[in-house]
């Protein structure tokens, strides 16, 4: 093995991959959210469709999409690999009585579970929108853009999807509540002056992003 593969197959190396990809995915969340906020614009989707058309066909975005897929891929793969390794490290004989809840938070211990829920959500989400837009012929709006807005409207009138999306965002919220500041810890970016700020920003980020995303299906279901 070369030093690179050795580095990234070590326990800390794997964690570094998790942290870097995690933070990258956080940046994706911001971009995705900013774009999607146009759903709330009272223009029946004109701006949103234009944005969607841009995202779907701009060559730079399409290139970044590959990076994004790799980011997701590594994050998911390493996450599952770490979970398996860590379970094995514990051994077969567990504690008969274990009060781990007294020394740590539930969500910090449940990153694999929360991540899996988010992954399930993600697959459905891709099927709902990305799949339709990319692989099927979608009707176009007055400006000649693919009418993504109509897809959103249709999906979010379905109570099943609304509930699923809200659950997905709750899982993401808890995933981020631990993951955001945890990534900084893993990268060694701690300092007694700045770490409290990172934690605060992490909490704010998680709550705002997830609340905003969750607001979309709810808004469409009840108000459109």
């Amino acid at each position: 093995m070369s030093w690179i593969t050795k580095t990234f197959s070590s326990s800390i190396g794997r964690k570094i991959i998790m942290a870097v990809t995690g933070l990258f995915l956080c940046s994706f969340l911001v971009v995705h959210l900013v774009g999607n906020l146009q759903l709330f614009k009272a223009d029946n989707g004109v701006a949103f469709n234009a944005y969607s058309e841009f995202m779907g066909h701009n060559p730079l975005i399409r290139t970044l999409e590959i990076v994004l897929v790799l980011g997701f891929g590594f994050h998911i793969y390493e996450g599952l690999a770490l979970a398996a390794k860590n379970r094995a490290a514990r051994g077969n004989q567990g504690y008969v009585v274990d009060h781990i809840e007294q020394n740590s938070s539930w969500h910090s211990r449940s990153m694999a579970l929360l991540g899996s829920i988010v992954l399930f959500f993600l697959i459905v989400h891709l099927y709902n929108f990305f799949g339709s837009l990319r692989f099927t012929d979608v009707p176009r709006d007055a400006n000649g853009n693919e009418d993504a807005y109509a897809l959103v409207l249709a999906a979010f009138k379905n109570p099943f999807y609304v509930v699923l999306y809200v659950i997905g965002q709750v899982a993401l919220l808890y995933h981020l509540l631990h993951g955001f500041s945890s990534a900084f810890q893993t990268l060694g970016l701690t300092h007694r002056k700045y770490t409290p700020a990172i934690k605060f920003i992490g909490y704010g980020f998680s709550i705002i992003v997830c609340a905003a995303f969750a607001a979309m299906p709810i808004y469409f279901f009840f108000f459109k």
Partner: protein
Amino acid sequence: MAGSNPNAKPMNLTLKVWRQKNRNAQGSIVDYQVKDISPDMSFLEMLDVLNEDLLRQGEEPVAFDHDCREGICGSCNLFINGRAHGPEPGTTTCQLHMRKFNDGDTITIEPWRANAFPVNKDLSVDRSAFDRIIQAGGYISVNTGGTPDANEIPIPKEIADRAFEAATCIACGACVASCKNASAMLFVSAKVSQLALLPQGHVERKSRVENMVAQMDKEGFGACTNIGSCAAECPVGISLENIAILNREFLAAKATSNNLA
């Protein structure tokens, strides 16, 4: 007798103790009753009472590790009622006192659980993995003699104090035992950051962290997921900040060392 609370009544307790003949045997929980336990006893003294009873009855006493009984040697290592070293924070098993329990309580006592810590017998586990990690690089390579005067290198008090804090680790293994990933990162990080903080440690800074982490992985400990159970259960208060320092040291070493292996 002379304890804080002369009126405290002796207690009767039910103990659920992990018994296991040897490393390869199957173990199980066995129930015992202990009577007239003084609240001023330490937890290990309570186990002494049980063992004396067992021995008098011709039964094998419960094997457990202990030595100094003043919280510094790091030998004692019991998982008590679902917590490493029991319910009292910042306390080793030997310094846990029975006044923290109540008459009639049932107490479950188990050994540390981790693949890298196989059970020797009953509650005694093999922690030699820790020694091997230190052997991989937890030292400064100076031979005896020929060292410069101790005051040759001034070290800022704040740095010296932080290095000391990290150096107080007693290697009891509570961090591994309480971590759901059986990760030894807190233990490893305490040594790495002690030596990374001190100027004397800078010479071997890169190889040290690379080798110690490699050995840690080889021993089969899990990876840290920043849950924080380790620091919460650490009897001497080793801080999570050390793990961040370890990560930083590792990343910097891997990125800049000349070691291609």
